């Protein structure tokens, strides 16, 4: 393994988003806090769908997870497509880094950004929504696994897209609807049966639901089921990315 090369690429991916932290860390922090403030004010306290869980407390983990997964996706996808557009991806392709090393470094960059945004929201929200950590194992497992999955999905989208327009389409027509329909703002048990069943096909639902279990100790489905589905998703996406990257799909002509 080219360990120094791998560490260098990880550092580059992290330094890249940190060099524009107003856009990559503070902007999502502010917009998420606005969601929290507005929805927390206008929704009834008992709208969570769970006994003894106020809507504010219910909403917080969902919003944290939504922001984490969106930022993890944005990081790897925008880094890759910018490298393509600026032409500097060739510098990476000329180096002795393997497909696995390149893929993992991009995903680690996405995980770090997702975790930083999530932790920032958690810390700031404590000023008006004190939380109790029911189970740090579930919290951390779902946070890491979800940012991994979205980092991989972003990598796949970045590989596929050959212009910013395509990436924006993927973000607006795939990531955004799946996020909003994943139970961030509501418990799926409150939905009509058809929409409940439709939600079960949304992988983001399991990520949000499992993460919320770590906070509240309550969830719509078993956290083990959510963990299993998210893990399968992570494995399948990783294999797909590695095969395409090794073949040079859309990057080696």
């Amino acid at each position, binding site marked *: 393994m*080219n360990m120094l*090369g791998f560490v*260098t*690429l990880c550092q580059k991916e992290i*330094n*890249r988003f940190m060099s524009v932290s107003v856009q990559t860390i503070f902007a999502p922090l502010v917009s998420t806090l606005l969601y929290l403030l507005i929805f927390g004010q206008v929704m009834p306290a008992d709208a969570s769908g769970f006994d003894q869980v106020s809507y504010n407390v219910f909403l917080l983990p969902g919003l944290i997870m939504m922001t984490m997964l969106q930022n993890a996706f944005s990081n790897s996808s925008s880094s890759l497509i910018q490298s393509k557009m*600026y032409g500097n991806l060739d510098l990476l*392709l*000329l*180096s002795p880094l393997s497909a696995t090393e390149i893929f993992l470094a991009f995903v680690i960059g996405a995980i770090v950004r997702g975790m930083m945004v999530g932790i920032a929201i958690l810390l700031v929200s404590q000023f008006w929504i004190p939380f109790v950590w029911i189970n740090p194992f579930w919290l951390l497992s779902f946070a890491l696994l979800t940012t991994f999955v979205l980092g991989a999905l972003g990598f796949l989208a970045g590989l596929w897209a050959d212009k910013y327009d395509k990436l924006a389409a993927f973000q607006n027509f795939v990531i955004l609807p799946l996020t909003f329909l994943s139970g961030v703002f509501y418990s799926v048990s409150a939905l009509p049966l058809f929409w409940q069943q439709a939600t079960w096909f949304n992988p983001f639902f399991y990520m949000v639901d499992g993460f919320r279990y770590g906070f509240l100790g309550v969830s719509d489905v078993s956290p083990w089921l959510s963990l299993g589905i998210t893990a399968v998703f992570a494995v399948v996406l990783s294999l797909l990315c590695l095969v395409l990257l090794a073949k040079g799909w859309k990057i080696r002509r």
Partner: protein
Amino acid sequence: MSNAIAVEISQLSKAYQGVAALTDVSLQIPAGSFFALLGPNGAGKSTLIGIISGLINADAGSVKVMGHNVQTDFRAARRALGLVPQELIDEPFFSIHQLLRIQAGYFGLGKSQWAWIDELLQRLGLWDKRDAYMPALSGGMKRRVLIALALVHKPVVVVLDEPTAGVDIELRLSMWAFIRELHAQGHTIILTTHYLEEAEQLCEKIAILREGRLLALEDTQTLIASHPWEYIEVTLETLPAALPSVIADKVHRRSANKLVLRSARGSARSALLSVLSDAGLILTEMRQIEASLEDVFRTLTHTDVAK
């Protein structure tokens, strides 16, 4: 020069959407040589270089760099090779200095390489721009950065894909001085260029491609010596606009009152003189011109359109 092979290309083929870019190309580039890869636009030079450097996947055939297959032993092959690409790139997030250190890091080279990076910055006239970002640099400066990036891991084989395209004379001269120095130190230099004078002056061996096929592979002087024509420049008292066809067929170039005439190598010069005399043209001066690489190139690639 040793008998070692720096780059071994075997039966390489590549097509884009059914259109052949390279067809069954095989050639060997000796280690330590200064090698030119020539051809008109669309000949397949950049495709070949892309495959050698791993940026393009071949449809068939194989390439080895210093004995390492670029597909199956890519780490060793890429460590042995540095490419200066034809297209300029940008990188808005990192300064030139940071970029070079990152690129060295990709090759597994840490602080031990920083002194070489500083030397590269000095040698290529980039030291004052080391904290600048690529988008703020001129085209010539970007070209220098690309050269530095290609050399950051001290590759044994250096590939320059049209490095002097759009580059001013000062940079061109300083760049060639630096590349010559690298060659003298034992690096293999592979060059593509449309400036054939550069190739003739610098390169010991030349390959010519046309429409994806290898047309010629020779030592530079052997290739020039094999040219079927020799040239005679004649200065005339007056040069009529229309020439008799027997002369017009032999004209290689014409300017003011001068004609460069083509005749078969070794043919009698007196025959040419009598043709001029018969046409009533008065000769004031005559000299023989050696065939250049450009003459050979134009004949081989059928781009000899000068009349």
